[in-house]
């Protein structure tokens, strides 16, 4: 049977996808088991019919580290900084993005001030030693950490990005003085300037290290009992996977491990379409996640992060809005119809689930309008109560607005789509992308239901619903290759940098990467971040096999003009950072069998996706059904099955 299997653990469902020996994929959705999610994973393995003993590789997207931070369930952690800088973690960047709320709270630092320790060692910005590491000082801190019962510590010293010697010396002293203490050195994770962001990265890593470690212990022992002897790989926020052993030391790299799977899957689809410009939307129960693929490549965040803790590690830029199937609709005291961000969540869920929910959700609106089949979801495992949905909409939306139930349900969907389209437009225009050039790639349980309306409202070229939209994240993870990243500051005017300087700097980065990651087959990808002097933001530019500062500057001017409409080839331009990645070639993407019904055109009603062959056309209004998801072909739209088994949605001219 299959040799490769992917697991994506979400809040409600655990998705398992495996590649069979014939290259076809098998999909299974099982309930997530709260408390210990490893039980759900092992159940899923059994249900999909995979024999763990025969698997070469098990790839896993996990939100264990993310949830620990969001829920305040991280381990007790200490912090060691340069003298005078222990409050950097709390001072943050001093900004107030929420400008008018006088009652707002600051995020609580993951290390209380009493557990932040300072040492006298000091580096200058050029890597010159101003004061050495004092052995006794570090040993005394090790003793205090032990007394306080702290098992994990972050170390972030000023200017360590320029020279890592002091951080490494402190790490060695701690290992010696406190065996078993878990140590996260900031420069092992990110060798970039900006002390707050690097401190935050190291602290998040230290705080999630014991949590992810304990989780992997449980998972690996469960797998071992089932005679699994292959490689366990963990999804990174960058879109590549790493070994479980790497993940144990770099949990901060796994924060977007779940949602990024869908974007990796989108990349394979974009590639099949010849490097398409896509904007993805993954609509689940409580939120819609949005990412951009510019000419087929996922756009990375300039500074990644989540909540309010930045992470200086490669991370696909994924934004969220509280708009999903469970989003609640209500009319406020002044007559505005609002949808989300409050959600009915899994319990009680939408009114139509019949689990005690009485307030209307987006799913209830879709059910009332006949866009979700009343016989239910999950192969009929969940029958839907259409009347309960209509009642909830009547009471909470239709009557207050003086509308019928049908128009009220349509209103709920229009507001939900408008809120999501605002995020789609915002993400695109912020990055300098013209929405008219981009197609929506819609997936998740709710993506297909909203695809036409979102494309319309956001002014996009069209929409695509990929095969198996309900397990898209797991599919993406299944197709992810191993990836290791390294970057270093390189702040120099482009005119001062010789090709030899660049070659040397990139060679050093690659040398470190190769020493750390014994990838048998890997492609090296080099890039640099450039900016005009005075700009706060940079643009990444590919470096090619024979890097030249002049060539990269030219490419930077072109990119700046392409994305932002202006360039100034005469203005002083500088290199800021060099990056290198070793990327294992991804396996051949999963093949999807198109439907086997007759080709030709259909109109109205409901159609099974499994019966739509390549070239089949469905005219809206009509719905296309498959396991776990429905695509709504709106009035004025047609759906066509392309050669890759995608549903391509187009406006009728």
């Amino acid at each position: 049977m299959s040799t490769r299997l992917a697991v994506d653990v979400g809040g409600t469902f655990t998705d398992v996808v495996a590649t069979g020996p014939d290259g076809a994929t098998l999909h299974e959705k099982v309930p997530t088991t709260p408390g210990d999610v490893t039980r759900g994973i092992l159940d899923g393995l059994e249900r999909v019919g995979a024999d763990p003993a025969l698997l070469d590789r098990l790839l896993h997207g996990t939100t264990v580290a993310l949830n620990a931070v969001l829920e305040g369930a991280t381990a007790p952690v200490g912090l060691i900084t340069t003298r005078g800088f222990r409050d950097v973690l709390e001072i943050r960047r001093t900004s107030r993005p929420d400008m008018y709320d006088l009652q707002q709270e600051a995020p609580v630092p993951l290390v209380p001030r009493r557990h932040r320790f300072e040492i006298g060692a000091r580096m200058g910005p050029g890597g010159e030693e101003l004061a050495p590491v004092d052995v006794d000082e570090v040993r005394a801190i090790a003793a205090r950490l032990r007394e306080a019962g702290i098992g994990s510590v972050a170390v972030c010293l000023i200017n360590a990005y320029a020279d890592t010697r002091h951080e490494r010396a402190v790490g060695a002293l701690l290992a010696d003085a406190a065996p078993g203490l878990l140590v996260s050195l900031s420069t092992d994770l990110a060798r970039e300037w900006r002390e707050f962001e690097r401190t935050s990265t190291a602290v998040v890593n230290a705080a999630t290290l014991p949590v992810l470690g304990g989780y992997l212990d449980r998972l690996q022992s469960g797998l071992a009992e089932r005679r699994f002897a292959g490689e366990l790989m963990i999804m990174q926020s960058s879109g590549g996977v790493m070994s479980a052993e790497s993940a144990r030391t770099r949990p901060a790299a796994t924060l977007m491990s779940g949602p990024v799977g869908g974007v990796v899957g989108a990349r394979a689809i974009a590639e099949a379409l010849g490097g398409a410009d896509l904007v993805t939307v993954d609509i689940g129960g409580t939120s819609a996640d949005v990412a951009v693929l510019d000419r087929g490549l996922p756009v990375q965040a300039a500074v990644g992060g989540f909540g309010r803790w930045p992470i200086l590690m490669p991370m696909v830029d994924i934004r969220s809005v509280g708009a999903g199937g469970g989003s609640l609709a209500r009319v406020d005291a002044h007559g505005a119809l609002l949808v989300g961000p409050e959600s009915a969540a899994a319990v009680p869920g939408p009114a139509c689930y019949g689990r005690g929910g009485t307030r209307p959700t987006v799913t209830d609106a879709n059910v009332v309008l006949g866009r979700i089949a009343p016989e239910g979801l999950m192969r009929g495992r969940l029958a839907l109560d259409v009347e309960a949905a209509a009642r909830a909409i009547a009471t909470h939306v239709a009557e207050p607005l003086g509308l019928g139930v049908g128009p009220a349900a349509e209103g709920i969907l229009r507001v939900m789509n408008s809120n999501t389209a605002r995020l789609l437009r915002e993400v695109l225009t912020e990055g300098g992308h013209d929405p008219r050039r981009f197609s929506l790639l819609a997936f998740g349980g709710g993506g297909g239901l909203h695809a036409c309306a979102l494309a319309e409202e956001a002014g996009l070229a069209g929409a695509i619903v990929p095969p198996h939209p309900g397990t898209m994240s797991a599919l993406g993870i299944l197709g992810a290759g191993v990836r290791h990243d390294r970057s270093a500051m390189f702040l120099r005017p482009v005119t001062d940098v010789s090709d030899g300087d660049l070659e040397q700097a990139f060679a050093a980065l690659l040398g470190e990467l190769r020493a750390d990651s014994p990838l048998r087959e890997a492609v090296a990808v080099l890039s640099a971040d450039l900016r005009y002097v005075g700009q706060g933001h940079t643009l990444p530019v590919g470096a090619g096999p024979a890097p030249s500062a002049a060539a990269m500057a030219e490419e930077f001017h072109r990119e700046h003009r392409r994305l932002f409409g202006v360039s100034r080839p005469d203005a002083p331009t500088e290199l800021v950072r060099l990056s290198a990645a070793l990327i294992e070639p991804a396996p051949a993407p999963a093949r999807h069998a198109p439907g086997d019904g007759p080709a030709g055109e259909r109109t109205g009603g409901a159609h099974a996706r499994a019966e739509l062959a390549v070239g089949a056309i469905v005219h809206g209004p009509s719905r296309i059904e498959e396991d776990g998801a429905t695509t709504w072909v709106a009035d004025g739209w047609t759906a066509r099955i392309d050669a890759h088994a995608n549903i391509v949605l187009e406006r009728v001219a």
Partner: protein
Amino acid sequence: MSVATALVGVDPVTRQVVQNRLISIVREMSHTLSRASFSPIITEVKDFSNVLLAPDGALVAQAEGIPTFLGAMAPLLPPVLDRYPLASVQPGDVFISNDPYSANGTHKNDVNVFRPVFDPAGPDAGPVFFAVSKAHWTDIGAKDPGSWSPDARNMFQEGVTIPPLRLVAAGDWNDELLEMILGNTRLREQNEGDLLAQIGALGVAESRVHDLLAEYGRAEVEAHVASLIDYAERATRAEVARIPDGRYRAEEWVDSDGVSEEPFRIVAVVEVDGDRMTVDLSESADQRAGACGNAVVTASVAAVRVAFKCLTLPHAATNEGSYRPLQVITRPGSSVHALAPAPVTLWGDVARAVIEAVLGAVGRADPSRAIGGLFGNVDAMALAGPGTGDGGEWIYFSPFAGGWGGRAGADGLSALCPIINGDNDNVPCEVIEASYPLRVERYELVPDSCGAGRRRGGLGVRFDVRILEAGATLSASLDRYVIAPPGVQGGDDGALSGLWVDEGDGVELPAHKVAARPLPAGALVSHRTGGGGGHGDPRRREPALVAADVADGYVTPEAAARLYGTGGTA
């Protein structure tokens, strides 16, 4: 059915869709501006705002980078239309202004550009909206580089004056006017780039509004805008009605006007009558000699609107309706209603005091809304010295953060930028050290700076920087170094702000408000912002919280014993 009858004849669903579209448009203007600009004050400090205004000046939608521009945009349009009547405005026009007096500007660095947006289906009916962009130019002429002169004595020392003028007429640029403006500034290239970035933002707005008009038609868009404004008004009135009726007075102080070291008073008398609020600032001091001592009336109204927004709907979309329940009264010739040619460049000091005076008065109306005093204002510091940069020198410039006041339900926030700033970051210490001959020796919270209280204030920040090379100078303009951030409801005052120079002999010399003060190599400059005022009687603070503050070193054991009477043990 009271809700349904309150609707103004538009479909509430489409109205919500139009609201999202309008917000997208003004935000896209801001993205366009900040991506095309190369000036850190625009790209980093976000010292700009972009709006759509109706031809009558009503605010339709706004994207703001800093709070004090929130209420400062709508007043810009009437002076333009006074000079160029609406009937004479054509597609492709661009207007420009910056005069705080004749153009209802803020200060001269803030340059405003306007573009009328017509309906292509019916251009004869006149503009539907005006797209307007305000952005801070790094230099606008004036006696000092950066046009940042606390001691300016009149508006003519503050830079080139641009009354409302037509820069582009139906697509034709007035090159003479452009040369006249740019020729009066120090950073011609940078300013021209920022101007083009602003005009680019206006073009984006025009094209997106055209899409909206094509989809819904002018009449329907206008009906939705009117309904959105009514909605914001109703929602705001409901919030004002929650404040107890009555007349409440509060005073605030500004330490110096930049010329004299004499503190002066800002007074707000707030009258709440049902769902209406009147703020009378007439008792405030007479207009002052220096540029830290004055604001024009539109700027003071904008400051009152910041406080009003904080008190009503801090998270809601803002439009003209958000301010209909508010009336502001000022006295011409006072520091909040300066008359030409009074200098106004550092109007933010007055704005800070106006905002806090309004919050203070409402805090008397409803103690649960009271908030302890804020650490100060932007408290900016500039260090400069001979170097290889533009003009042959290096310049490090940064605003600073400090402690905010305690609230009824929570301690004040530490290390946060002042209320007139918003979503703008500090300069990281590692970036400072890599860029300038400076070494940061401390960047830390100041223990005991927080005003004691049942809910204590937030802590101020200490930033110590060593000067590594000869020839450096220090310029700074602090606030709250004489009069401390007040406590409320029985809480204690927060610590003062202060800027101190140790030239190497261990003696700290004050330098709270200085211009180009020489610094020897090796000098240590210590910038310490104050803490927020406390809320409520410190003796009522839960002993466990005091003990935690002592354990974390936010409060010293001595201060805990003296102020809280617990000695820091639970």
